[in-house]
């Protein structure tokens, strides 16, 4: 029999991840058979990091007309108006951006076998693979799980990747290394019961210091800023905690929830915030469903009071503080001894690269090297070569960054020339990391359903032009940040750039023209300390000239070492508008047809392809998500019957009933936990004894299937008993659906 990845990797995957992937594989089958609601499947898919892509509604404007994309699976969908066979995106979570050599090699393999040979680093330290088929995702996830990577909760209404400074632990300014805390937070909240019923996503970030950018905590839903306090002569570690920050269409600066929270209190605090958000956050209107709106509506004082109230009733959980014990052991092992760079022959181009791409660590003899990735992209081959370099020089000390680059940490200074040579040989030796040429961009119209203009096309064009004249660029603009989003949703983080752009469109005659709104004066430093302001929209094809006009004027006007933000503030909106105005006039299609196509796209521009985004996930009730787990277990039971594995069938059927009961109990008692005894006891008290579960005709019959199996497990599982239990589980699940609808009203909102 042909071996599968599941067979091969069974012993390498963490058990819980392996089980989750099996469940999802079962859900794929259920959806194909029409036995799972498309909205529920969409949300469960999103929560596993599997996202839709542009044109997945089966229509695409080819520049002349809108063509139907007749995928072979016909009407089968993987979510509302989302064709089954349409290529999608896989988002891979990397807590604090951490990567090992082994993980790099496996990621390279998966990009080659399931995607288009490109690994894309995102602005939240994730990696994305595009053009992935839904049916390839279980194996893709297994291969990642085998090297301890999960895609779980990378999308959907969940806690997304927990990010942190890419130089945490080697930084000169940090209070302490936030890496192990971000790691602990990511693992604690992954799949946590209290983080499953959000109306929108929650983004969490950690930063080691206040003044520099890396962590960007003030633009996150929840931000942790490392601090120490001196308490009776003892230095205590903890965090200043921010809540309610976010970019999106309505950017908001986070508010201070607490000036100092001790290190052993941050996990229960995040749990309490999650509970308040799940309970009171908006669920129906996705445009107001982020935490920032709840904080804003309640006011920070009331939000703080509610969190405090919640903290007092959260059940004790050993995981709240377990990780503290492991902190003293946390540390990174350099692969080589740190030695100074002394007298070595330096390759051509090294000095420029050294100036922009090398950060001297606080540990003597070591540096962190930024590998500058154009638009955050690298090929599988480049990833493997980078893995070779890492293995030889730095070991597993590799991280992704929010500026869509990769850093190699703990590079011995004496190795820098050789590393530069090696990077140069694989096309990754570009200087200019974190400078004006290192432009951040979201996917935009390349792959995003919401994209209005080609952010990557524009970013690529600007990068090419800036690199061509890098030698002549004035020093004053070298360190400016440029960030581009394809629409107003800010995935390219344009609000925190000196010069930001976000896509929109304007009309000229009977045609639409791709445009970018110019956003000036944002602040990347001070943890995204302030946001830029929109100054006016210009045609996409004029943006390079606009950029030149703005930077020329800044260089000419600059007083002393005035920052770009101060200059924008001093100049005022009227003057800025005057700089932009000459570029705002629109030609006709006949006069200048190039204005009517976007960067890197040969088609006449159209907004017909803009679809419904999946950023917001599907608004599906907690019950629907929970009961779907029961249905998946039941499906596994059916498969086990087919395979004549009756012990397994019995186990899955029983589990299915427990999960269904839990789904119902959690609508009234969210803290029921995982213990089957507690679940059954709560179910009995709340729904059986009260007869709330009872069907008008058969009364409590289906509930008794669970109660009897729980009280009296069969001494020996027989084929007959297994078949019967699988049948009973199905009846119990159906009865639970009915009861929930009767008790709580609408199931899927």
């Amino acid at each position, binding site marked *: 029999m042909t071996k599968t990845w599941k067979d091969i990797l069974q012993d390498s995957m963490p058990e819980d991840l392996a089980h989750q992937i099996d469940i999802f594989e079962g859900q794929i089958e259920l959806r194909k058979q029409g036995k799972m609601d498309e909205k529920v499947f969409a949300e469960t898919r999103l929560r596993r990091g599997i996202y839709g892509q542009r044109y997945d509604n089966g229509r*695409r404007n080819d520049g002349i007309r809108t063509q139907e994309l007749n995928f072979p699976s016909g009407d089968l969908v993987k979510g509302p108006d989302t064709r089954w066979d349409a290529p999608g995106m896989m988002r891979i979570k990397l807590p604090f951006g951490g990567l090992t050599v082994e993980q790099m090699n496996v990621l390279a*393999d998966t990009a080659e076998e399931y995607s288009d*040979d490109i690994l894309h680093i995102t602005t939240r330290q994730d990696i994305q693979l595009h053009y992935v088929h839904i049916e390839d995702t279980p194996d893709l996830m297994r291969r990642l799980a085998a090297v301890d990577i999960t895609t779980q909760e990378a999308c959907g209404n969940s806690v997304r990747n927990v990010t942190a400074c890419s130089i945490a632990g080697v930084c000169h300014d940090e209070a302490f290394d936030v890496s192990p805390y971000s790691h602990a937070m990511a693992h604690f909240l992954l799949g946590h019961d209290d983080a499953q019923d959000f109306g929108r996503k929650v983004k969490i970030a950690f930063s080691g210091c206040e003044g520099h950018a890396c962590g960007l905590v003030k633009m996150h839903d929840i931000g942790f800023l490392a601090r120490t306090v001196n308490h009776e002569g003892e230095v205590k570690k903890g965090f200043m905690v921010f809540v309610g920050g976010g970019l999106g269409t309505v950017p908001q600066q986070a508010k201070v929830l607490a000036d100092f929270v001790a290190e052993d209190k941050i996990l229960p605090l995040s749990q309490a915030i999650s509970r308040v958000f799940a309970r009171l956050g908006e669920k129906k209107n996705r445009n107001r469903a982020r935490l920032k709106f709840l904080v804003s509506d309640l006011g920070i004082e009331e939000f703080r009071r509610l969190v405090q109230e919640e903290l007092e009733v959260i059940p004790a959980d050993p995981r709240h503080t377990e990780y503290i014990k492991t902190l003293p052991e946390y540390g990174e092992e350099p692969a080589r001894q740190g030695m100074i760079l002394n007298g070595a022959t330096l390759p051509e181009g090294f000095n420029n690269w050294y100036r922009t791409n090398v950060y001297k660590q606080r540990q003597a003899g070591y540096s962190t090297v930024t590998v500058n990735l154009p638009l955050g992209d690298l090929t599988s081959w480049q990833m493997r070569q980078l893995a070779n370099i890492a293995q030889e020089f730095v070991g597993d000390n590799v991280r992704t960054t929010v500026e869509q680059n990769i850093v190699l940490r703990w590079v011995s200074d004496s190795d820098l020339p050789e590393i530069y040579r090696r990077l140069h040989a694989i096309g990754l030796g570009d200087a200019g990391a974190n400078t004006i040429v290192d432009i951040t961009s979201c996917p935009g119209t390349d792959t995003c359903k919401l994209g209005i203009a080609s952010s990557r096309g524009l970013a690529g064009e600007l990068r090419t032009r800036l690199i061509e004249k890098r030698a002549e660029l004035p020093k004053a603009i070298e360190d400016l940040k440029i960030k581009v989003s394809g629409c107003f949703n800010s995935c390219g983080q344009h609000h925190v750039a000196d010069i930001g752009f976000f896509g929109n469109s304007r009309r000229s005659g009977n045609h639409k023209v791709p445009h970018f709104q110019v956003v000036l004066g944002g602040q990347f430093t001070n943890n995204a300390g302030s946001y830029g302001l929109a100054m006016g929209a210009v045609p996409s094809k004029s943006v390079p000239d606009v950029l030149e006009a703005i930077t020329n004027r800044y260089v000419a006007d600059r007083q002393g070492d005035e920052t770009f933000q101060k200059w924008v503030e001093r100049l005022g909106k009227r003057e800025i508008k005057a700089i932009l105005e000459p570029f705002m006039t629109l030609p006709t299609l006949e006069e200048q047809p190039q204005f009517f196509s976007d960067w890197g796209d040969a088609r006449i521009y159209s907004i017909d392809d803009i679809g419904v985004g999946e950023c917001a996930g599907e608004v599906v009730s907690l019950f629907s998500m929970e009961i779907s787990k029961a249905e998946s277990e039941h499906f596994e039971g059916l498969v086990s019957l087919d395979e004549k594995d009756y012990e397994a069938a019995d186990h899955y059927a029983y589990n299915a009933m427990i999960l269904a009961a839990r789904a119902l109990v959690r609508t009234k008692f969210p803290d029921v936990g995982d213990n089957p005894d507690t679940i059954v006891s709560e179910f009995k008290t709340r729904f059986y004894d009260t007869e709330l579960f009872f069907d008008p005709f058969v009364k409590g019959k289906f509930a008794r299937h669970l109660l009897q199996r729980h009280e009296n497990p069969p001494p020996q599982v027989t084929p007959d008993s297994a078949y019967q239990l699988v049948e009973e589980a199905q009846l119990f699940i159906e009865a639970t659906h009915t009861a929930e609808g009767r008790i709580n009203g609408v199931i899927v909102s």
Partner: protein
Amino acid sequence: MPAPKRIIAKLFIENPQDVHPEAIVHLFHRWIQQHAVEGLLIDVADYKHVFNGPGTILIGHEGDYTYTTSDGQAGLQYTLKQSEAESLNEALAITLRRAVDAAEKLQADEALSGVRVNFHEIQIALADRLQYPNQPEVLAAVQPHVQALANVLFGGETLVQVADDDNRNLITFIVKSETAISLENVTQRLAVAQVG
């Protein structure tokens, strides 16, 4: 041998310096408009900014057509992603036929004026580490299949080489011949040999 999950065939461009990268973007969009090549064609992905990368990809459902610069050598590549093929030979045949078809269309396109494809040499890779891991015994088992197919297609002396020795890479062969291959030859010879 079973059909691999993905199979890739690349024909090399003889004069890449004469090909403007933007022209390929335009060409692939035209191919979508005109349904010019086989399969459901979805979109064009642009990776020209990536060193030795996939360049420009015409994303399809059954397979992707790529004007690639991988390994530093420009080429027209077809990647078979979804097919009914049940055997390695069948999958190879489909992949080669589509690659050669696309390469001929590329060469004939007036807007590209004078691009030349080398039809004497093909690079073939199997993107399936589950069934075809890059191990000596697997290479040895696959090589005769590639050799047999090459003999049929080129009809004469052919040389099949293993492309590189890094076993993390995909199993990759280079097939070379004195004679050139054409779509007409591919179709006829595969039919005669009943391998497709």
